[in-house]
């Protein structure tokens, strides 16, 4: 036994009980004196035992399968999440496109007046914004295209010239606002009902502006005494409403939309 090849062969044969007679005797002597051969023999013995343990090998194979299945599962989950994100982004894009308050609906871009007769078809156009008249409701007019502020914080910055007028009632001898208060805090989607008393027989006009001073709702010649404002398409932010009676600004208030 002169080289490593021979030693390995003898180690293997020894562990498999294949070494006999003089060879065995010689090997045992070397085993007793050489630590390297001892460790080689120990490794081979343990490895042989391991390879003989068919039960354990089968078990380990199943463990590997479970482990890789888990990895595959994680991979699939990642793909699923990515797909869902893409769908969500696509839907968001669609929603933003259709939402007049955020991007300017084609109808708004055209400055199209939406009459009460066309209100139904407007709703059918999936535009969520409309002013519902409860008593006498001649027209709702959408004006300019509305900018979409990039930052939410910017939506809450007060509009200086209207802020000072909030709560001030002027030239309102024939007009009295019964509700709401001058400041209303709502969650997106809440409704706000306006009730007033007009004793001079005049119609009133109603406007809602965002905090950039852009008119988002305009309703003229309201003959009734109430209207309901639906806010479910509004972005979070600060809005101002104005009521005009006999060409005079009679009441100003603000609406805070916050989640």
């Amino acid at each position, binding site marked *: 036994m002169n080289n490593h090849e021979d030693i390995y062969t003898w180690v293997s044969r020894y562990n498999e009980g294949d070494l006999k007679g003089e060879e065995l005797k010689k090997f045992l002597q070397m085993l007793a004196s050489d630590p390297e051969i001892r*460790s080689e023999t120990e490794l*081979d013995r343990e*490895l042989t035992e391991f390879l003989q343990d068919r039960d354990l*090998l089968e*078990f380990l194979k199943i463990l590997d*399968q479970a482990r890789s*299945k*888990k990895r595959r599962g994680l991979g699939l989950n990642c793909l699923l999440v990515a797909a869902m994100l893409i769908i969500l982004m696509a839907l968001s894009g669609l929603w933003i496109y259709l939402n007049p308050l955020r991007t300017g609906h084609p109808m708004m871009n055209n400055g199209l007046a939406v009459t009460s007769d066309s209100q139904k078809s407007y709703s059918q156009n999936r535009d969520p914004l409309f002013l519902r008249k409860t008593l006498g409701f001649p027209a709702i007019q959408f004006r300019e295209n509305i900018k979409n502020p990039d930052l939410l914080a910017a939506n809450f910055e007060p509009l200086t010239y209207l802020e000072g007028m909030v709560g001030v009632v002027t030239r309102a001898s024939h007009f009295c606002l019964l509700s709401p208060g001058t400041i209303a805090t709502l969650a997106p989607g809440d409704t706000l009902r306006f009730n007033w008393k007009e004793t001079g027989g005049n119609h009133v006009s109603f406007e809602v502006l965002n905090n950039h001073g852009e008119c988002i709702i305009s309703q003229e010649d309201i003959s009734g005494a109430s209207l309901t404002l639906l806010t479910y398409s509004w972005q979070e932010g600060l809005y101002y409403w104005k009521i005009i009676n006999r060409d005079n600004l009679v009441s100003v208030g603000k609406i805070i939309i916050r989640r």
Partner: protein
Amino acid sequence: MGPYSDAKIIDGIINKRPEVIHFMYKDYFPLILALIEKNSGTLQDAQDIFQEGQIALFLRCRNQELVLNCALRSYFYSICRNLWLQRLEKKYRLVYQPDLLVNESEAKYISKESITTEQKLRRHRIYWKHFNELPEDCQKVFLMYFDKVPFKKVAEKLKFTDENYVKVRKYLCKKLLVKRIKEDPEFLNCVDHE
């Protein structure tokens, strides 16, 4: 999949039922991952310890050495905890932080019990890793050889020229396996034979 009672899991381990092993992986692994990550380990460490824990559990179930005085989940947790503890002490010299979310005192596993040691379990895992990476014919030669299939039949099944080639192939495969194992840096850390 699942949930399985402890008895069903033990039965599934003994009988190597894939669905039970998959269930264990799904149900128990997050617990072990949290334990390892909390104690300076990585995902890879957690996977290794989890696999070693399962080998330990399998051996104890098979050898009828399993005496369960608590929930299997707690028992398995404590096996993995002890395996990780031994590795931490040996390699990293770090102090173990118990996981307060798990009632560790419930686990009756004691490391001094006659359980296969952490090092031996690690070696088993390493042996398996390299065995699994061997060429397919090598794996088959070993399996048939240790199943006492005659060399002549092995040669026929594997389409080798003759039985002498089977012997040569077996010799070369084992040599390759030993070489790969000995070159594995992880193996060098666990050759301190007990």
